[in-house]
């Protein structure tokens, strides 16, 4: 459903993303990992239209979307969350999501938008009460709101940006399960960017690893976790930590 080829983004003399190609199939969860500054968020920003690629092509459902404005890309069915939640504090929780439901689905019907908001809030487990304020939400609640906003736009493809930063272990597992439910129940294809490798490995179908803006590995979670190049760049060269993390990843992937 998504076919990215030769994607490049330069900021002045710095190449943040260098000739990255990949594809995502319908109904799949693709994990996207890599150290800080490896180009994950830049790729997301190009897929969602926040940044225009320097060169390369992004085909979504067979149509070129590289360089389109964000609202056009959303209306074609690509929703996104932000790494740091960006709620609209002057609106209620419900209004936040209804806004996304209205504008994200091409401004057709307010009633449909409000129905989409109710469904999305219920899906992520937030109250559907219309007057609840955003200020009452904690870190986990804000992440859920971010997800509900993205879901309300009725995406075919969801770009989930490091959804789990700042959560404790139980919350992390819950959030990971939620992403899987979204795929299983709503049939939404997901690209998931994440720092925390263990949780990600348990849920994704395939993983792609970036380093310094280049793709260095791609494949099944168990295979990628054992790839020496990945271990070197992503986990560092400290042997003990590396092996522990790889074992943890394999255990989670297996379980």
């Amino acid at each position, binding site marked *: 459903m998504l076919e990215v080829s030769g994607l490049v983004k330069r900021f002045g003399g710095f190449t943040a993303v260098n000739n990255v190609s990949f594809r995502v199939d319908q109904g799949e969860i693709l994990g996207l990992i890599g150290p800080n500054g490896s180009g994950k968020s830049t790729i997301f920003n190009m897929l*969602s*239209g*926040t940044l225009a690629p320097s060169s390369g092509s992004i085909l979504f459902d067979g149509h070129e979307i590289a360089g389109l*404005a*964000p*609202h056009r890309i*959303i*209306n074609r069915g690509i929703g*996104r969350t*932000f790494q740091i939640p*960006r*709620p*609209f*504090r*002057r*609106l209620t*929780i419900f*209004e*936040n999501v*209804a*806004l*996304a439901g*209205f*504008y*994200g*689905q*091409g*401004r057709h019907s*307010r009633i449909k*938008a409000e129905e989409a908001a109710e469904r999305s809030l219920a899906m992520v*487990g*937030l*109250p559907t*009460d219309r*007057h*609840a*304020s*955003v*200020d*009452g*939400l*904690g870190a986990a*609640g804000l992440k859920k709101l971010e997800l509900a*906003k*993205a879901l309300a*736009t009725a995406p075919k493809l969801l770009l989930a940006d490091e959804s789990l930063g700042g959560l404790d272990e139980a919350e992390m597992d819950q959030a990971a399960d939620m992403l899987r439910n979204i795929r299983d129940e709503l049939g939404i294809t997901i690209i998931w960017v994440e720092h925390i490798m263990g949780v990600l490995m348990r849920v994704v179908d395939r993983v792609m690893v970036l380093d310094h803006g280049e793709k260095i590995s791609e494949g099944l979670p168990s295979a990628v976790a054992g790839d020496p190049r990945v271990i070197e760049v992503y986990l560092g060269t400290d042997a003990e930590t590396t092996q522990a993390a790889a074992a943890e990843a394999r255990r989670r992937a297996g379980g």
Partner: protein
Amino acid sequence: MMGQGRLAAWGIGLAALVALPFLYRDPYHLHILVLILIWSFAYTSWSMMGRFGLVSLGHGGFMGIGAYVTALLWNHLGWSPWIGIPVSMVAAGALALIVGYPCFRFRITGHYFVLVTLALSGIVLQVITATRDYTGGSLGYTPNRTSGNKLLALQFDDKTTWYLIALGVWLFGIVVWHWVDRSMARYALEAISEDEDAAAAAGVDVTAEKLKITLLSALMTALAGAIYCQYQMFITPDTVSGIAVSLQMVFAAIVGGLFVSLGPTFGAVITILLAETLRIGFGTKAVGWDNLVYGVLLVLFIIFLPKGILGSVLDRLKPQRKVPRAHEQEAVQVARPGT
């Protein structure tokens, strides 16, 4: 949502306002009321975009275009204000789009947007002053008195007629304010005022939404200028355009309350009573004092009472609606298995 009680209060208030000129005929007081209503409409028009953080100091320009284009078309081409006013509104709207589009497209926001719009009202003032062969320059301009149909020329001698026209225009402004307030566009504009990228990620066409509200606001402000011109039958660049008029709009809207529909109206009552008091009390010795008072009060209000007088009073009066905090609700849901 507008409850039955509020609707009734609006109805009674409006009936009283409509009845007023038939019961009370003091021309000076009616004159003050007409001015208050026209300026209230102008301030409401400004607040349409001002409430979303789009602080424009260019609205003096839109108002000046509304007044001068209408008067010039009447005097030079003999076009009735019924045609001249829409033309002047289109002119102001076109200018708003020409200035607004590059600002919004290239994300000129906050202080920089204020500066661009400041230049706009300065330029309009300069153009009016510089083309003195047509506009009379800084000496002012008077639409020719009609010898024919007064309705066609939109020139009336009695205050009651003008009072009712001004009331109608003012009411129109309030209705538009409520219409925007209850629309989805309000959500989008609130979102844009907080975080443009996040609004775009929710599917909002940021540039288009900002342009729409700017256009609406400019059209209404031009209408205010034209009505003011028809009522006063004398305009000068300084009374309908320029930075002073723009600042006066900002001041009145903020003092009255930006986020409530009657806030700008309340601001107009205060500014016009203040100006009249100074004028009558101190005469020519106090020329320009009102602007000084505006400036000082504006600073005080922005710091201490950002919701304005009416906004703050309504906040106090509003029965505290029990708003369940979201996390409390989460706790409730967790504690109740099977929901």
